[in-house]
């Protein structure tokens, strides 16, 4: 009989018994509600073993790729180790190999890890400093292509981690990575499907990884990237992405800034464009019908939530919308003169 390992406990399943029923019978307080495969309350992740047949029905492709499954539908034939869906992976030691300024408020950090850090480009990981300070950043590099892990760090006023990275972090410094997490990444297949990727600020980091991943996979459908910023200074990786648009006839790169005139002297590249105005108004006008599209949204939390709703109403299937809202930890209040 199959044995399920969960948070240090082992439960032997009866013949034909679901993982959920087995856990509940053993007195484990496993989350659940409908017990019929719809509500997704009982979602869990396979850590070791095969994903039970039929237990991923109805889940997003990205969730399937992550090994998420429904315990109420799972009748494993072999032993299975599982964890809560959001349980972060182990911590891996890492070393800083490069720190570079990408724009006035974005720093690129490159790391190498002591052990392989299994992840998909576009997911995020938590960077842990030697004193325990921890912040999450998206991974902009591609596993299998890049020999380092690249993160784009936005400089936050009084930000503890970003300030340290910008001023004090040195090549060779020891840190750690915890994770990965997040569902913004490319799942190979459906190559003809049009892709729309919209990001603000360092929301560009995961989108860059997804674009590279899709092109590497031989994606043939249109790939539309829209990067939003407050003003022109917020755009970065412009040369790289413009070059990509020159090389790939199915990739288009648009920049949209809230304020200012476009003053750049960069010669216009094919399939690149610059717009001035609100990002959400721009994409609503440019993409009136998203039926059949796969959509990725990363960056400013309120904008991501609003655009996800828009993308769905504009026709994208709920399973094809992947969003990652970047939440910034509030900076500590400045000390007053008396403290």
């Amino acid at each position, binding site marked *: 009989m199959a044995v399920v390992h969960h948070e240090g406990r082992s439960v032997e399943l009866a013949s034909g018994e679901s993982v959920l029923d087995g856990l509940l019978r053993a007195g484990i307080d496993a989350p659940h509600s409908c017990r*019929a495969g719809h509500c997704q309350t009982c979602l869990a992740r396979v850590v070791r073993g095969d994903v039970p047949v039929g237990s991923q*029905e*109805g889940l997003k492709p990205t969730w399937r790729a992550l090994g998420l499954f429904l315990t109420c539908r799972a009748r494993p034939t072999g032993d299975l180790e599982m964890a809560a869906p959001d349980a972060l992976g182990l911590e891996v030691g890492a070393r800083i190999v490069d720190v570079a300024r990408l724009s006035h408020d974005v720093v690129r950090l490159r790391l190498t890890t002591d052990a392989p850090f299994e992840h998909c480009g576009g997911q995020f990981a938590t960077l842990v400093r030697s004193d325990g300070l921890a912040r999450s950043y998206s991974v902009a590099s591609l596993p299998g292509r890049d020999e380092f892990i690249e993160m784009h760090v936005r400089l936050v006023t009084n930000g503890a981690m970003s300030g340290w990275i910008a001023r004090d972090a040195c090549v060779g410094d020891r840190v750690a990575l915890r994770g990965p997490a997040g569902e913004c990444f490319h799942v190979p297949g459906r190559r003809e499907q049009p892709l729309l990727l919209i990001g603000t600020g360092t929301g560009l980091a995961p989108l860059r990884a997804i674009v590279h991943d899709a092109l590497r996979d031989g994606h043939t459908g249109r790939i539309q990237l829209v990067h939003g910023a407050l003003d022109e200074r917020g755009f970065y990786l412009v040369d790289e992405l413009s070059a990509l648009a020159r090389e790939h006839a199915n990739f288009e790169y648009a920049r949209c800034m809230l304020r200012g005139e476009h003053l750049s002297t960069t010669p216009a590249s094919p399939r690149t464009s610059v717009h001035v105005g609100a990002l959400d108004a721009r994409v609503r006008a440019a993409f009136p019908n998203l039926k059949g599209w796969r959509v990725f949204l990363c960056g400013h939390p309120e904008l991501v939530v609003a655009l996800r709703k828009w993308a769905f109403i504009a026709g994208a*299937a709920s399973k094809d919308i992947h969003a990652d809202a970047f939440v910034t930890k509030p900076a500590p209040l400045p000390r007053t003169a008396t403290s």
Partner: protein
Amino acid sequence: MPSLYEQLGGEPAVAAAVDVFYRKMLTDDRVAHFFDAVDMDGQIAKQKGFLTMVLGGPSNYTGKDMRAGHKHLVARGLNDSHVDVVIEHLGATLAELGVGAAAIAQVAAIANSVRDDVLDRPARTAAAKN
């Protein structure tokens, strides 16, 4: 006779129907404000459970679940008129999928049977005695 759930094609068909149904709800000003855009995936999962139940698919929802799941919305003013809107969109969604009027009426009757639970009030038969 197979359930409407099976006739429509089971889980994949209902997953597609939920998108159609939820899109109608989100774009209808009469009910859109009850949906919290932050947890779209969670809400779609719940709608899928609801659609599966009213179509006669595998479901373990109880009246108690329905009460607990909507109490916070009743506190925000959820009433009969909103349940009517849900049933209206449910019917329109099924019609788009090619379901006939008689079957839609049956589904509407099942949806109506949980109305008192959703609105957290005594079952109608009990209410009628008062």
